[in-house]
């Protein structure tokens, strides 16, 4: 049978079956099980109404349980057993094996990099675009065009960016944009400005930003008038320490930029340059996710009460102050939502790495590592163990979401 015909039949059978199920189970409930007539009519109506929700819910709960809840526990079980030993219980042996593999730590390191860079960059650019397009006449067109990559598959985007990163031998015309641009640099004054001074300035600006953030985090502790709780104190100190570390790192790198010997005039195969190639992969996801961040944040910006902005302007605030001190604090909640949603996407990123490098040249990430273990090495134990690691990384967000959803419903 032709698959398209099969698909059509499935749609009809599936939809018909679902609707039929709901209709006939309701009929059965009302007409046969608890008929609303005779001596027990009142009680029967009540009883029918107690059962009915479960009739409506049953297929959904069944599918959810089978396809999402059951696998969590089954994967946990599989991660503790060994397939080659007929599924015998092996305790944490799979985890031990996984932790001893350098490829796993490479994946973890890369995933952490992805987790920092992609949500930060997407949210920041998304916020920038949302703010810039907020009041210009053709803002909606601009937004719609920047939003467009959301519709493009990760695989399609990978092809698009592979063309950009394409490298040809030195004597041929470069067809990848990045190499064509790269060959324009010749070590002259322009190159020094763009490739040394500019990155150094950006890094120093980042260091200044972290210093400012560390100050705002630590300042309340130093203020002896206010008492802070122990947990808050610890969190603030921890945040401060991370900020100081990032700031120092940025300053060191800003100095080191001047010492780099760039390979001017040589076409680069960008995806094989260790460490930096991960960033070239991240660009793909940032390109896709920025539109998402922009749409949500733009709606949030629209929701800001006009009076607050007007009051600030009357008080003499400049546009930057209005943005950072009036608008951003009011949409902080939405920024967190956008950030966590992109974080979830990042944790599950598979297609981009699979299609572009397949984890070679030190670009491995957890989801691709897992796929490798499952379907190439056929090692279900370690594969499941790495899936559990992904689950563990997701679970703080899961708990946070559930907590918020419950709070909202009350």
């Amino acid at each position: 049978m032709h698959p398209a015909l099969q698909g059509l039949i499935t749609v009809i059978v599936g939809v018909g079956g679902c609707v039929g199920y709901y209709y006939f189970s309701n009929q059965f409930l009302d007409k046969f099980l608890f008929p609303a007539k005779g001596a027990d009519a009142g009680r029967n109506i009540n009883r029918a109404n107690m059962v009915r929700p479960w009739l409506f819910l049953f297929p959904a709960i069944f599918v959810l349980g089978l396809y999402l809840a059951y696998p969590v526990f089954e994967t946990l079980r599989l991660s503790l057993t060994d397939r080659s030993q007929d599924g015998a219980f092996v305790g944490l042996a799979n985890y031990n094996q996984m932790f001893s593999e350098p490829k796993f730590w490479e994946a973890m390191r890369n995933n952490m990099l992805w987790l920092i860079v992609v949500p930060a960059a997407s949210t920041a650019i998304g916020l920038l675009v949302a703010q810039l397009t907020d009041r210009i006449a053709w803002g909606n067109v601009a937004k719609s065009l920047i939003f467009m990559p959301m519709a493009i598959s990760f695989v399609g985007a990978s092809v698009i960016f592979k063309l950009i990163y394409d490298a040809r031998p030195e004597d041929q015309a470069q067809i990848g944009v990045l190499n064509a641009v790269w060959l324009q640099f010749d070590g002259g004054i322009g190159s020094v400005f763009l490739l040394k001074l500019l990155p150094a300035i950006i890094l120093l600006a980042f260091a200044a930003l972290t210093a400012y953030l560390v100050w705002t985090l630590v300042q309340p502790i130093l203020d002896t008038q206010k008492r802070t709780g122990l947990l808050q104190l610890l969190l603030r100190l921890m945040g401060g320490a991370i900020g100081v570390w990032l700031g120092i790192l940025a300053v060191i790198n800003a100095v080191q930029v001047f010492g780099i010997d760039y390979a001017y005039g040589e076409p680069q195969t960008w995806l094989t340059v260790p460490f930096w190639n991960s960033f070239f992969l991240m660009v793909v996801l940032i390109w896709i996710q920025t539109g998402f961040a922009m749409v949500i944040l733009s709606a949030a910006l629209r929701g800001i009460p006009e009076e607050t902005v007007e009051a600030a302007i009357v008080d003499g605030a400049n546009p930057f102050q209005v943005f950072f001190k009036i608008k951003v604090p009011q949409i902080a909640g939405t920024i967190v939502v956008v950030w966590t949603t992109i974080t979830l996407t990042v944790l599950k990123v598979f297609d981009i790495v699979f299609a572009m490098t397949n984890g070679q040249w030190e670009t491995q990430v957890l989801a691709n590592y897992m796929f490798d273990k499952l379907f190439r090495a056929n090692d279900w134990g370690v594969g499941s163990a790495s899936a559990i690691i992904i689950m563990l990384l997701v679970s703080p967000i899961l708990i946070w979401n559930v907590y918020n959803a419950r709070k909202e419903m009350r």
Partner: protein
Amino acid sequence: MDNIAGTKSSLTWAVHLSVVFLVLLWLFPTVGLFVSSFRTADQIATSGWWASMFPSEQNLVLRAADPDDFRVEQGGVFVVEGNLFDEDSAAEISVWGTSSRAIDTYVPGDVADLGDGETITVDATGNYVWTGNDDQMSGRGQRVFATAEAPPEFTLANYDNLLLDPSNNEGMAKAFFNTLTVTIPATIIPIVVAAFAAYALAWMDFPGRALLIALIVGLLVVPLQLALIPLLKLHLGIGIGKGYLGVWLAHTGFGMPLAIYLLRNYMVGLPRDIIENAKVDGATDFQIFTKIILPLSFPALASFAIFQFLWTWNDLLVAKVFLIDATGETTVMTNQIVELLGTRGGNWEVLATAAFVSIAVPLAVFFAMQRYLVRGLLAGSVK
């Protein structure tokens, strides 16, 4: 009012310019793919796509017509005349030569001496006159190496090749229909199931409702990576194996939390009066659902339908695990592209066209129904 809320400042032009810059930056990659898919392999290999809008200089290897068929005797010598290019070409030759080692020996109009009285002359538009004796003027046509300025040229041959050529086993036609076969049931069935569940969660009272909603919010973020092995094992165990049925079920399951969440949030916001009036008038829950809730929830249904459609159309992982078996008969477009990336890594005319075929449908859906997509996004991100 706009003046008070302060954007009409000196920064306005800077704002416009930076937005233009960002939009161009965001469009540039896709446009590159789009343009490349209309160029021939030669064109792609010799120049970047951004140069394709302008005339390009190409090194060509051309051949005069076969002397055995076309030679004409003129006063003791044989002559072949003609044009080196195809009929509708507008290329202009700047330099040419007769040997691959010296391709720039002559300018148009020069007469090249091929030895023993054999000569050839080529003009700028490609017209040539090739003369020689009986012996010289036989066998294959004389080769000419020319550097020519060719005007921009685009072709539909790549699409023709990839979609309409039945003998091309790397074609996308089959994968296109397979993707469609996966997508449509995997979009419609979850909507039906989720709509009923969402109604129950929104408008019916029963113990454990709050807990169920919390559970669904939790399942919203469970990575589907966890489901791969247990469910593949299950599918193999109960005899579904790898195939369409399996992938439809899997997509139904993975899309369910978002579907229920979106639809419930929307249905809760519907006016209570309508539903209570209907109840007073004696409508059953089933009637209320089909006659009132479903029609009113159309925007939410559309939002989710777009999400699910984009997600199933663009999916690679689920199809790889639950659908595509060793025969590769059921390959979907994303998988086909990844395979092309492996086997035809340098053939950008094939890759670009294949990728554009696969992203054309989602793009069309995106631009047609963007409103619903945005609405769904705003409702779907957990607040």
